[in-house]
């Protein structure tokens, strides 16, 4: 396969036109979104391409770390936008995502599985952060909804002398699973139903399929670890918001 340049992109644009024609014929009101979306995707990705090129050339550890932190904060902002029922969700999502992402990346670096080079670390961080973002939002939403909906059960447990941790245990379990579920499902079906992105990308770029598979397995394990840490930290921080140090349930925001 040849390398893909602007000419190829322009040719591929015909597929967007075809989609617009098809949707117009069936009166699906998405033509404007399609046109805008295609332009946006083009601009954003080209910008990222140039940015990555520049960052790779700089080859500075500090720049890499800075980029990762910016990615985490932007991701945490997006995740907190999806959080309902709790104030200052950003504090929770950013701490949880930072811990999940940095601990996982740090472990991989320390164990020597990856090296601290921009071209490895940044794409991996991107995948990790994307997954932690979903995990943190899902966990926070699930646990805060469950606590609000089960006030009587929780206070009954507290009144029997249980700690806030014991009183919320059933809901904690479910919320953590909710945060990890898509990752667990992904691990079950990977390779059978769909070929994951990292692997597909490597194969398209001309790598040996076996190398691509090995990398994908490592990525999968990393994502699992990042998602687990993110969910647990998000859970811990969220539940604590609902209780005083004297094990009293307080509902923030009302």
């Amino acid at each position, binding site marked *: 396969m040849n390398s893909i340049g602007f000419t190829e992109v322009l040719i591929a644009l015909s597929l967007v036109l075809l989609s617009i024609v098809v949707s117009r014929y069936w009166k699906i009101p998405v033509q404007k979104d399609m046109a805008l979306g295609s332009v946006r995707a083009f601009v954003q990705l080209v910008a990222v391409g140039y940015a990555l090129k520049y960052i790779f050339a700089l080859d500075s550890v500090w720049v890499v770390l800075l980029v990762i932190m910016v990615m985490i904060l932007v991701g945490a902002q997006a995740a907190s936008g999806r959080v309902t029922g709790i104030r200052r969700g950003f504090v929770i999502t950013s701490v949880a995502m930072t811990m999940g992402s940095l601990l996982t990346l740090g472990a991989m670096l320390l164990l020597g599985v990856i090296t601290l080079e921009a071209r490895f670390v940044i794409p991996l961080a991107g995948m990790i952060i994307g997954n932690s973002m979903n995990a943190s939002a899902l966990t926070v939403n699930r646990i805060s909804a469950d606590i609000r909906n089960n006030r009587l059960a929780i206070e009954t*447990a*507290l009144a*029997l*002398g249980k700690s806030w941790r014991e009183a919320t245990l059933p809901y904690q379990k479910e919320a953590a699973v909710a945060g990890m579920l898509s990752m667990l499902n992904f691990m079950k079906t990977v390779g059978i139903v769909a070929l994951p992105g990292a692997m597909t990308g490597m194969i398209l770029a001309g790598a040996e399929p076996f190398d691509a598979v090995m990398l994908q397995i490592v990525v999968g394990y990393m994502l699992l670890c990042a998602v687990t840490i993110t969910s647990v930290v998000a859970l811990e921080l969220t539940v604590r918001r609902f209780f005083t140090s004297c094990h*009293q349930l307080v509902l923030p925001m009302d």
Partner: protein
Amino acid sequence: MRTSRPVLRLRNLSRRIGHTDNTRIIIDSVSFDFERQKIYTILGPSGAGKSSLLRLINRLDEPTGGEVTLEGKPQCDYSPCDLRRKVGYLFQTPHLFPGSVRDNLLYACSDLSEEEIRTLAEQSHLKTEMVDRSADALSVGEKQRVALARLLATKPTLALLDEPTSALDPAHTAGIESLIRELANQRGLTVIMVTHTPEQALRMGGESLLLVSGRLAEHGPCDRVVNYPQTESGRMYQRKELR
């Protein structure tokens, strides 16, 4: 045996909620001494703060003023979990956890023996075979008795009961009432029971407290509080002018 020291002492107990510019007083400077092994009923119109007072005694809510002393020791000197095991609390609507009746009793106290489980069931007028029934297959009256048995499992010295018969028909109400009297007389429990019917306060005997707008308007032997109130709000409550 009677000790002069009250089992529970409230001093200027208050709770206000809301922020600086918009506060509401729910419990207004309530002082009272509860003596051991007696039955107390708390009367008052809806919204008077009856449930809120029980929540403060169990420390499910934090007082904003005054103090609660349990067996001579300030409430905050107990760990909240220890305190709550001494001060059982039956909610206005009982909640049973998923599982059997036995699971619910074991949840309150995990090292109960079979013997103790049977005794708890008997004391709460539950048939022994009921212990293995699933908690969500019970009637409201049975649930109420299981919740009572579960409360007793932590061996409290004080039982706070929030309208334990409000969801029951007259026959079941009489059953729960005699059960509660039995618990006070035989287990030496101090019972503080919220009720919204003066007739029930009279049936329970003991002392009554009348709460109106978070204030202790009237207290004394139940007959006097219900039939011969001394204060204006007590008389208004008697004439059912307070809702």
